[in-house]
């Protein structure tokens, strides 16, 4: 897919290491960047206080690894990555890293900073054997707009450092309960500067805590999806992020970590008379006044009042096993949609996103050490010339409305640039089971259409440039399709072109 850019990035990094042989600190940093190319994608989860960042992280991992609490909980930037055995490392600003004990309480991981104050902590790293973390390292961040200004500052410093240093995350999932002025401002700050500017392409917005909309009614998720839909159509939001998805984090987390005992308790609740249960579920205090308050408190913590309402009604409708209930809960939480969006918009581009981060990092390092002027030219050439990056940039410009394409053409351009997915079928908008011949037909039709746009004398220079990029994408699709009659291999899309050539 993006092998060319990754190779180019690797080559530049090696050359940079060569140029800094006598500077151990820079060499170390460059080696770290080199290693990063082979590591999983780094996805930061950001948002305002109590937006449900840790809960969503747990839902994505499928285990309760991030501590969650009613009050403001995450105080330091915490990395969750795949590792052979559970291990927590505390990296301090002024002291060597120390290992923290790995303890679990009620199935949830407990992280205790001990007597180290939060402002001294650079980051926490949690190694955890997990399939989900193998594809992406997740980074939990303290909430912005926190009443404790210090906590928000840590997140802003992490995701949007003041100097030109690139951020450590390759992509961002931004959680919000509703789009707030502070959210927009923060999203705005993700817009990168410089040649690799790709703006919204590495950000996905999530309407979190969707289950609480409308007071936790059973149809809350429908309302939440409607709101997500509205945001998706809003031009300002489109300029800020790739996509907007509604997710009920708590339901997703519980669904993915549902225990037998919890199912049993739910089933017992569902067996109670319906009117009686409804009256009890009118408020948390009423619910807690029922039998076994301690157990009920735990249920509430895991499900929320919406979750209890939903689960009991699901059980009444026939979800008769923990597995069935868990599947239903996850399906209704919107987690699947988020995972699909993550897959198409982050995972399929992960090499590209990583290479981009690495190139930006090495560029800023070279700028500060004032060495390897020739290398910096190289980097600039790769960043400006690599077609994959050009696609990302054009996507961002199209979304922010800086380039105008005729109506209808804009949507097609976004698709051809790989907005909805990088496979040929996705790009061409063909049916999933289209035969290579059909794909070929579609590809040539698109190519023809866009070549005509390029020579359209009525288009402005910017528009023509944009059309050229799209034409190159079409050419890439055609080139990647198997030759006619050469057997039916998997129709993988993407673009194979040497980096650095201009279209």
């Amino acid at each position, binding site marked *: 897919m993006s092998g060319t850019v990754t190779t180019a990035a690797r080559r530049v990094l090696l050359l940079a290491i060569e140029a800094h042989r006598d500077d151990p600190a820079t060499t170390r940093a460059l080696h770290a960047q080199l290693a990063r190319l082979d590591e999983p994608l780094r996805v930061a989860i950001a948002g305002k206080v109590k937006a449900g960042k840790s809960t969503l992280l747990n839902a994505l991992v499928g285990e309760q690894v991030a501590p969650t609490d*009613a009050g*403001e909980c995450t105080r330091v930037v915490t990395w969750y990555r795949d590792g052979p055995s559970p291990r927590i490392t505390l990296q301090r600003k002024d002291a060597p890293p120390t290992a923290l004990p790995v303890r679990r309480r009620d199935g949830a991981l407990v992280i205790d900073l001990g007597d180290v104050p939060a402002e001294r902590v650079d980051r926490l790293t949690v190694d955890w054997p997990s399939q989900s973390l193998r594809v992406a390292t997740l980074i939990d961040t303290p909430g912005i*707009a926190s009443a404790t*200004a210090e906590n928000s500052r840590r997140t802003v410093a992490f995701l949007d450092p003041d100097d030109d240093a690139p951020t450590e995350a390759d992509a961002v999932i931004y959680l919000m*309960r509703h789009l707030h002025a502070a959210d927009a401002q923060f999203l705005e700050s993700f817009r990168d500067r410089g040649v690799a500017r790709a703006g919204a392409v590495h950000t996905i917005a999530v309407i979190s805590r969707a289950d609480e909309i409308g007071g936790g009614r059973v149809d809350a998720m429908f309302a939440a999806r409607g709101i997500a839909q509205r945001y998706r159509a809003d031009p300002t939001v489109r300029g800020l992020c790739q996509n907007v998805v509604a997710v009920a984090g708590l339901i997703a987390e519980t669904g993915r970590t549902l225990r037998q005992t919890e199912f049993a308790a739910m089933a017992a609740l569902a067996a109670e008379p319906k009117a009686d249960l409804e009256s009890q579920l009118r408020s948390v205090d009423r619910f807690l006044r029922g039998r076994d308050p301690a157990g009920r408190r735990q249920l509430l913590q895991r499900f929320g009042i919406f979750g209890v309402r939903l689960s009991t009604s699901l059980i009444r409708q026939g979800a008769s096993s923990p597995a069935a209930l868990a599947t239903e809960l996850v399906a209704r939480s919107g987690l699947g949609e988020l995972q699909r969006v993550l897959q198409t918009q982050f995972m399929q581009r992960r090499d590209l996103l990583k290479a981009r981060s690495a190139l930006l990092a090495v560029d800023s390092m070279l700028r500060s050490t004032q060495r390897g002027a020739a290398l910096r030219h190289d980097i600039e050439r790769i960043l400006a010339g690599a077609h994959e990056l050009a696609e990302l940039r054009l996507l961002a410009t199209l979304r922010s409305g800086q380039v105008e394409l005729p109506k209808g053409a804009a949507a097609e351009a976004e698709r051809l640039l790989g907005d909805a997915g990088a496979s040929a079928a996705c790009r061409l908008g063909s049916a999933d089971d289209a035969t290579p011949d059909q794909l070929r037909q579609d590809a040539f039709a698109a190519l023809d259409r866009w070549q005509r746009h390029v020579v359209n004398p009525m288009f402005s220079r910017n528009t023509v440039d944009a059309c050229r990029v799209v034409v190159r994408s079409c050419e890439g699709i055609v080139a990647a399709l198997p030759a006619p009659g050469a057997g039916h291999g998997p129709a993988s899309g993407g673009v194979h072109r040497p980096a650095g050539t201009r279209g």
Partner: protein
Amino acid sequence: MNRTEPLAVVDRTLAAITRFERPDLDDRLRHARSRLLDDRVRVLVVGEFKQGKSMLVNGLVGAPVCPTFDDIATAVPTHVRHAEKVTITLVRDLDPAGPDPAQRRTERIEVPAEELAAHVCEQGNPGNREGWSHVEVAVPRPVLSGGLELVDTPGVGGLQSVHGAATMAALPGADAVLLVSDAAQEYIGPELEFLAHAVSVCPNVACVLTKTDLYPSWRRILELNRGHLATAEVDAELFPVSSTLRWHAVLESDAEANAESGFPELIGFLRKRVLGQADRLARRGVAHDVLAVTEQLVGNLRAEQSAQQNPAEAQRLMRTLAEAQERATALKERSARWQQTLNDGVADLNADIDYDLRDRMREISRMAEEEILAGDPAKAWDQIASWVQQEVASAASANFLWATQRARWLAHQVAEHFAGDRDQLLPALRNDPSDALRSVRPMAAPDRSPVGLGNKALTAMRGGYGGLLMFGMAGTFLGFASIINPLGIGAAIMMGGKSIGDERKRLLTKRQNEAKAAVRRYVDDVTFQVAKDSRDRLRLVQRDLRDHFTAQAEQLKRSLQESQQGAERAVKASRGEREARLAEIVTALEQLETVRRQARALLPAPVPAGSPARPREAVRAG
């Protein structure tokens, strides 16, 4: 609030003093009466969006007066108050820039209840494009009787938006503020900032924690919020409530659910603290007016009485009265001193506030211009425009709050000149927020229409034609037969392209200049309007204070004059006349003493010394 008792006292006093034919005193009491009648107790319901403000108002009233919705709902402020019959009135200011808020013309349209949502909601009226200043909903609910007026503010954009700035500016005119936030999370930065502002200008601030039915750990959040309030040194009560439970209780008449909902405590707070305080202020004001008016009359009667009883003493009495009159004149003269303090203070205040406003606005213009020069304003215009509007609104409201605080401080400075004269009560200061933002013309967008194809072609042709002519002609010398030769065509294409490029550059510069001019004009307009508003407001404050004290000095002087005349009459009167007059005086005195006793009964039991009265009490009552 029970206003009948003070009203009855005022009416009785009015009846008792008609025979003295003192229109100046009559006026004073009539003023007090009308103040009693239309004094509304305004409670602002404020908060970030989607915290349940409208639900809270509905719960408080026990009727669906504010439309609620899953997505952002309220777009127009809704004022809910008591009336015998349900009426819904949409109000629009026709002349918001008028100098005196009392004389503003408004357009009022009554609509049926089912149309309310279409005008108030973000869905029916996005961004309040219909331009209503507010909606008045009157409903027959006992909880609102007594003058309580609940104001549901729009949550759109949050506390830091244009709406938020408008809410901020309405704070000094409110009797109480309820900050609404849900139990999903503890207070965030903007909420605490808002609270800190609110307590500095509003006498009653309470925090409401909503949706306690939904969040199991609302008690934790409550404690955390208490901690935040304590850290921020905000003195405000916290009420956890559940609107859903209350609503259920209203529908099913479920007393238990009602008790659980937490609403009884909140209503208790509104009735006891907010209404109670307004009530105390009203009673105090009435008692003060009645006592001051009757004291003058009693003084007259007493003087006449003693003169009638002992005519020989009349001469000495007249001397004392002459002295007293001199004192009254001195009071008027002293007014020269306080008037100077007032005039100087207002002049200083005007200068400071004007400077502050201009400084803030200049900074905004500067930043906006930088932004405009950085790109093509036609593309980013919407963002720039909304940013400018929001910044301007919050600058204007910050300036207004500061002006209000300074004006109050000035009023106290002036009142200190009267420190010797019993407890001087100051008249209510006007603090209607400036509506300047709404009256300003909207920002004119720079010409954003893309260069039309026709225009483009024309420009290209113009350039190309020149090229063709010049180089084509040169080509004929080189041996080409026609003026349309390759050289000429090449030149035509190049020069045509160049003309288009130049034209485009020229248009960009033009757009940038237009955008800069539009921003500057808008900021100038607002600055002009807001500055004018605050000057007007200060002038009104100045006039109010001056009239208030001058009127009192005048009343005192006239009373003393009448006493003197009474004494003179006594000297000349015959014995029979004297006895008849004495009897009259006794009955009149008795009558006055009765109303004075009633007026005193309105005052609360004396407060132990050392408990400082809130400054606002002194300012509001008059």
